[in-house]
């Protein structure tokens, strides 16, 4: 079924750089949203909060605020904890709109919650920025004001396939082993289509339910399929479990790429040397080469802190020992995109902002930003592929972003037991 066409205010002319005389310059700009600080997404929620706070530090302290009519307006973030419960989001977003009078909304984490609060945003005509709703389906529902910062789910595992295709034409047999959930299914549906397109043979494509305790049945079946590369994962716990049990059952492949879990430093802490060589897709990674210089080379405007600055602010709010995950980066980037759109619109009017988004093409530390004007889906942003090498995450794909060479094929479990690292 075709998604309903969205009546975007596309035809309107791009707003002028100067404010119209009647537009008042606001005292401050408030972005509001809920985060999952408790409950099943607490990990992502906490990261997002820190990412947002880091972005705001740059925005207010370095940039001085958003430039509207020549005046710098400070930005605030108002948030509540939605506990990852679908019942809470509507009421909290309603409160953000009516009581806290926020100007722009940051959507909650996960596709479900993003959908849940969408009607409230839409009814009140507030721009609704998704920083953690990866599902492509959100943008097929005909909501006017949803905009996405991150790459959609269908892109998560395509990078790994691209890379293998480029460096090892002999690797043909792919196995998919992933969580039976909305998000992972979207990821691997995209991956499967792409794999077939690239000429891979999908020799195994099976799911496991949420919160598995033992993946042996699935993995021993997969082992028999003798895959060259294994793509899998879902969330944190199962991703860790997947890697652990691959090790236990000594299932070797030339490449293992797991979504979500390997992105967090705790992944390596937990698995130790077993994590060596494991690859994961990320919306962002420390070390990505999105810099003002790179932007200039591409002829696209750069906005926001540099990566180093972001890292520094992040550590200021989160603590010295913390490294941002991509969840932090995408939330921070969402704030920057909102700020830029408001600046471009020179107004806090929702239609003007939404319109400004359509014409917004920029690079931040998180990467490119450019949306599909009709649906609001992110088109510009690229995912990266990283690999745990010698206890560090090294970006290995795409080549433009890479900070190191892929270690391929990855060491076998037996080798890793001997202490072999995925370093040359």
């Amino acid at each position, binding site marked *: 079924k075709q998604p309903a066409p969205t009546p975007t205010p596309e035809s309107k002319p791009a707003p002028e750089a100067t404010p119209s005389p009647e537009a008042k310059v606001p005292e401050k700009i408030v972005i509001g949203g809920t985060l999952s600080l408790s409950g099943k997404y607490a990990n992502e929620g906490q990261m997002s909060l820190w990412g947002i706070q880091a972005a705001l530090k740059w925005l207010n302290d370095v940039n001085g605020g958003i430039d509207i009519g020549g005046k710098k307006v400070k930005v605030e973030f108002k948030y509540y904890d939605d506990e990852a419960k679908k019942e809470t989001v509507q*009421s909290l977003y309603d409160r953000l709109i009516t009581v806290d009078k926020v100007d722009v909304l940051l959507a909650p984490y996960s596709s479900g919650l993003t959908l849940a609060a969408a009607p409230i945003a839409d009814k009140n005509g507030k721009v609704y920025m998704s920083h953690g709703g990866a599902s492509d389906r959100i943008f097929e529902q*005909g909501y006017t004001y949803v905009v996405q910062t991150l790459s959609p789910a269908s892109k998560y595992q395509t990078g790994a396939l691209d890379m293998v295709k480029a460096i090892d034409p002999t690797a043909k047999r792919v196995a998919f082993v992933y969580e039976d959930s909305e998000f992972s*299914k979207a990821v691997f549906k995209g991956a499967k289509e792409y794999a077939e397109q690239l000429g891979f043979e999908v020799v195994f494509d099976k799911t496991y339910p949420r919160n598995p305790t033992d993946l042996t049945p699935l993995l021993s079946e997969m082992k028999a399929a003798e895959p060259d590369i294994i793509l899998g994962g879902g969330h944190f716990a199962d991703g860790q479990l997947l890697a652990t049990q691959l090790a236990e059952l000594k299932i070797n492949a030339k490449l293992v790429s797991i979504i979500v879990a390997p992105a967090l430093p705790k992944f390596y802490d937990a698995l130790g040397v077993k994590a060596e060589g494991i690859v994961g897709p990320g919306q962002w990674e420390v070390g990505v080469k999105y810099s003002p210089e790179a932007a200039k080379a591409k002829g696209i405007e750069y906005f926001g802190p540099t990566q180093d600055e972001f890292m520094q602010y992040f550590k200021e709010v989160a603590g010295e020992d913390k490294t941002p995950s991509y969840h932090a980066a995408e939330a921070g980037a969402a704030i920057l995109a909102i700020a830029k759109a408001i600046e471009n619109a020179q107004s806090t009017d929702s239609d003007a902002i939404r319109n400004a988004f359509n014409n917004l093409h920029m690079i931040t530390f998180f990467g490119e930003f450019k949306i599909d004007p009709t649906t609001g889906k992110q088109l510009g942003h690229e995912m990266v592929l990283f690999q745990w090498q010698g206890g560090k995450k090294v970006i290995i794909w795409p080549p433009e972003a890479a900070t190191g060479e892929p270690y391929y094929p990855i060491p076998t479990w037996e080798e890793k037991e001997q202490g072999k690292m995925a370093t040359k």
Partner: protein
Amino acid sequence: MKKYIQPLLPVLTLYIVLLGAGLSIPGLWQPIAFIMFYVVLGQALNMFLGMTGYVDFGYVAFLGLGAYGMALAFSLFTDDGLGSGIIVVGFLMAVIFSILLSMAVGAIALRLRGAYFAIATIGVSEGFKYLIEGARLWGGSEGIIISSQLRDSFGSEMANYLSTFASDILIFAIGILAAILTVYTLHTRAGYALMALREDEDAAKVMGVNVTKYKVMAFGMSAVFAGLIGASAWTLKLTYVFPEDVFNIIYTVEAIVIVMLGGAGTLAGPVVGGLIYGILRYYLATVLPGFQLLVVAPLLVLIVTVFPDGVVGYIKRKLKGSRFSKYVI
């Protein structure tokens, strides 16, 4: 008539106050809708738990099926030109689904007693969830999203209105209906039969009570209300159904918690319990985001140690014999 109205008075008054406040104070509508979800959830569960003494841990299955009923109506019939009739079809499907499931579960599990029944029903709701996911029924783990169908059928504005207002009004209506039905039942033969079987099933049988009939009746009634809640508060309001969300046992636990907070088997109990629970969760989430549960949890424990029979249970006991006792049943 009076005996029906008197106990309903406090409950209806509360409803009217909530409705009035929600409609007149800006920004209060959604919070009240949020609280009402818990109030009505408690009321629906109380119809079965309070009246029969049977605890149904798989209760959420009825909400889930109700939610699916409505979602399926939209995904199957959007193009059939039913107009707003599609919502009626959705509710019908929700009701039919819940009744069918309640009959199936009733036939199997209602023979079990006590905790065995309670936990056997977990088998039902969890089993159902994994059946949907495993057999890729109804979209499997990807669920059903109906936002676009809502928009196609009613237009953007009306769809938003449905999700952010009409569905909440429906919840109010379901709550009021539940309250009236509860009071009515309590005063009929059925009410006494339920009391008897709750207290001593064997003795009730010997006294001529067809315990199976009344159990199934209460079970079905409670299931229908759950189905309506699922269809309205989840599908219509949130516009999507994911199996992992709608078959989550936490809702059963919350419903029991609400019923116990207020007092099981009392009419106003779940209403008061839902209010306490909803308000605590909502306001603390706004004041102490991220730390609210550190406060909510001990408060719940404190309340239950002070009022082991629930707040309304306590009031009822205090009022016993006074002229106000008619208002609290």
